[in-house]
């Protein structure tokens, strides 16, 4: 590997405080607050139109907030134009200038900063070596593959040693195989440089695999911030539960009290509740497919909870079999490990979904 020195200056934090942004009547960002720690690989994750790219462009200075401010390393940069912010952005389309060679593209930012000719040459070579493209310096962007273009875009941005690195869906224009490779390279690069990095994506797998922490966004609001595992295990609301992985959601309401207390699921099925279970008002029952088991109707789990169901679908996924079963009015997904020789549940058969009380999450919108 190339000996690239980590940052000479310490990594900085990025703070977003009370940011609101509207395009006419369209309220795109609604009082967004985020604290991104120095050296962190941070993701804005959400469906398209959730405001994540708008927020990224706000940090880069291409959007202006109506209220609130953006601080980098504790300094308010809200009033600065894009060219004075020193935050490097890798564009979704890469935005490589077609009239310049790879080397000229990478040299651009250094030249704009008045770096001497010899020094520019040296740093362009370092930046291109960093992404393993030193041998393609004299090519035009159009002569490179998508993956190579992406790496040139990264080299061009890190060559100026920005305080913060912004990545706008950097993997979306790559094929599936390249995506896995490039995301590892990005993670390695970020680790080596120790650069505070913000990554915008709509793909939860991308965010989960390379980011330290994720802000899940929807409808212009931050829904939850946390490590990938925290978000998966303890989603703050139904949106987060649904957006990260598959979640089964059962609608219903709490009936009765004491030992008689139970959750009446729409469609007439009752789920007894233990006395210590805390169910917020209006909450729905959420569980992951792999936290449930499907058994024959007769079998009853020890301390488990049992829901009668009918098998509607069966998909063989290799290591596991995913059943779609009808519980009351709702279809629920249940994953069972695949073991050869074991009988599978047939479509149309009666069965029982058994749940461990620990696996239950109560969430509202």
């Amino acid at each position, binding site marked *: 590997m190339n000996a690239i020195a980590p940052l000479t200056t310490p990594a900085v934090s990025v703070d977003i405080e009370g940011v609101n942004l509207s395009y006419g009547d369209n309220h795109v960002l609604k009082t967004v607050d985020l604290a991104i720690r120095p050296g962190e690989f941070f993701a804005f994750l959400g469906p398209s139109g959730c405001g994540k790219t708008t927020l990224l462009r706000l940090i*880069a*200075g*291409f959007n202006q907030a109506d209220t609130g401010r953006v601080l980098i390393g504790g300094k308010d940069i809200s009033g600065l*134009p*894009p*060219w*004075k*912010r*020193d*935050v*490097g*952005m890798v*564009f*979704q*389309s890469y*935005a490589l*200038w*077609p*009239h310049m060679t790879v080397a000229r593209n990478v040299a*651009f*930012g250094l030249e*704009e*900063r008045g770096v001497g000719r010899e020094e520019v040459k040296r740093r362009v070579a370092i930046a291109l070596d960093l992404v393993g493209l030193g041998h393609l310096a004299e090519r*035009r962007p*159009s002569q490179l593959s998508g993956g190579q273009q992406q790496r040139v875009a990264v080299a*061009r*941005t890190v060559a*100026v040693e920005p305080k913060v690195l912004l990545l706008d869906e950097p993997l979306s224009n790559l094929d599936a195989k390249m995506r896995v490779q490039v995301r590892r390279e990005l993670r390695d690069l970020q680790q080596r440089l120790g650069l505070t990095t913000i990554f915008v994506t709509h793909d939860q797998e991308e965010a989960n695999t390379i980011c330290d922490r994720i802000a899940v966004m929807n409808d212009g609001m931050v829904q939850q911030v946390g490590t990938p595992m925290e978000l998966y295990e303890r989603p703050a609301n139904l949106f987060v539960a649904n957006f990260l992985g598959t979640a089964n959601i059962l609608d219903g309401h709490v009936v009765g009290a004491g030992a008689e207390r139970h959750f009446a699921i729409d469609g007439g099925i009752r789920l007894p509740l233990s006395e210590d279970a805390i169910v917020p008002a209006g909450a729905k029952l959420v569980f992951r497919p792999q936290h449930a088991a499907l058994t024959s109707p007769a079998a009853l789990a020890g301390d488990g909870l049992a829901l009668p169901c009918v098998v509607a679908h069966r998909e063989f996924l290799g290591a596991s079999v995913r059943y779609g079963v009808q519980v009351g009015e709702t279809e629920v997904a249940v994953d069972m490990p695949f073991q050869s020789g074991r009988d599978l549940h047939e479509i149309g058969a009666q069965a029982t979904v058994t749940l461990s009380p620990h696996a239950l999450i109560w969430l509202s919108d």
Partner: protein
Amino acid sequence: MTAIPTATLPRARRLSATPGQIALALAIAAFLLLFLGLPVGTVLYVAFTEKGTSNFTLVNFYDFVRTELFMRSLWNSFYVSAMSVVWASVFALPLAYLTTRFVFRGAMLVQTLGFLPLIMPPFVGAVAMQLFFGRNGSINLLLDDWFGFKIGFMEGLNGVIFVQSVHYFPFILINLSAALRNIDRAMEEAAQNLGSSGFRLFRRIVFPLALPGYLAGASLVFVKVFDDLATPLLLNVKDMLAPQAYLRVTSIGIADPMGYVISVVLIVASVVAMWLSALALKGRDYATTQRGGGGLARRTMTRGEAILGYGVVILILALVLAPHLGLLLLSFATIWSFSPLPDAFTTAHYARVFGESSIYIKNTLIYASIAGGIDIVLGVAIAYLVLRTKLIGREWLDWAASAALAIPGVVLGIGYLRTFYGITLPDGTPLASLWITIVLALAIRRLPYALRACYAALQQISVSLEEAAENLGATKARTVRRIVVPLMAGGILAGFVTSFSTAAVELSATLMLVQSNSDAPLAYGLYVFMQSAAGRGPGAALGVVAVLLVALCTFLSHLIIERSQKAKGMGH
């Protein structure tokens, strides 16, 4: 995998196309050879052979170089073309920049009005420009009254440069605006993100990315001006190349070799200019907008900028509209001489145009329609052969049809005269004197435009749409008729209108080929009228008719294309 023995394949499989396609290609090739290759070849042959014998010689070119008049004409043509590019750029640059980079009220209006000059032949504008900017035109009369001096806008070569740059600047405006609009906003943002702004950003990123568009427009202007015959003639400038070629052939005769030598020089100049621009554009297709990327960011202007900006735009638009306004005034004027505005107004000129001179209009409609029809039939056929078959040598058809772009109208006219004068009908009339010759020349001249339109239309159609038809049992020919042509309809219509409207006002080739007044199209009639002071009124009226005709066609086709695209759900 099962291997199919090649020997059992039907024989037709090994041919590069179906017999029908081969026959079609051969027919097109024959047409192009006869009406483009042969006339141009004849011009080249005469220029390079000794008069009277058929021995190869360069003596004609030696004569050309030795004659002071010809060398001066060559220089003048070059000078006028280059200066027209400079002035056209001066008009086009601010308009393009203002309308694409700023939030600018009336940007659409500017872009649309910018097209206006193109719907009128430049020589028609020349007369109107004389009235406003000539030695005794409105502006100079007023200047003389108020300040006691005159400006020689229209003196000699300056007049040609002035008229041509006002007429042709839209070519630069259109290409440059498109280039500016096609720059992805991320291109600019990436530079800003790396610390660039203001004029440095423009110089290093925006300008280089828009340069190919500018060059494409500029080279087109250069070639058009270099080839134009009627404008210098009407402004009484004779020492330029195209007028010299015309004058040699019409005054000395079609046997004189100098007209052919000049033609060769004109062709070489066209080809070199196009070749240079192609060279400069090679590998520089910078259209960088991504889906949903949008063009460059538009800025709101400060108050001062706005005043300056609108001032520049209004001034340029006034210039652009001057020929049209002048023409309109002239067409209603009784006498307009030595006064800023006409003395009185009348509709008599229109009565004359629609009365005794309506033959011009009728001829134009017939000629331009047939020429446009030929062009789209050839255009669709060539586009289909090139894009959808594996016929060997299919690119040659495309190449040959596009080569007409490099042949100036006057050269094609001379070639037709020489080639088809010798061929006579049974009753003794030479082929060259039949009106159909004019139509064929027009069709050849405008074929490249129609071909580009058809090409673009066919490229947008997914091959799978045709494969689906074939899969459901349609033959190649029926697929073309039922699927390809209906889907191409918008593009075909656009091609037809471009051919039709440019053929309707074409003069360079027509001037050579019109033998009798009764066969003359509108542009020829205009030219004849405009040459005498008394004919200016009816000439202007005819000019207004021509402008309205072309404008109406363009507008109608625009409507139809828009509607059909909406119906197909292809609109935005």
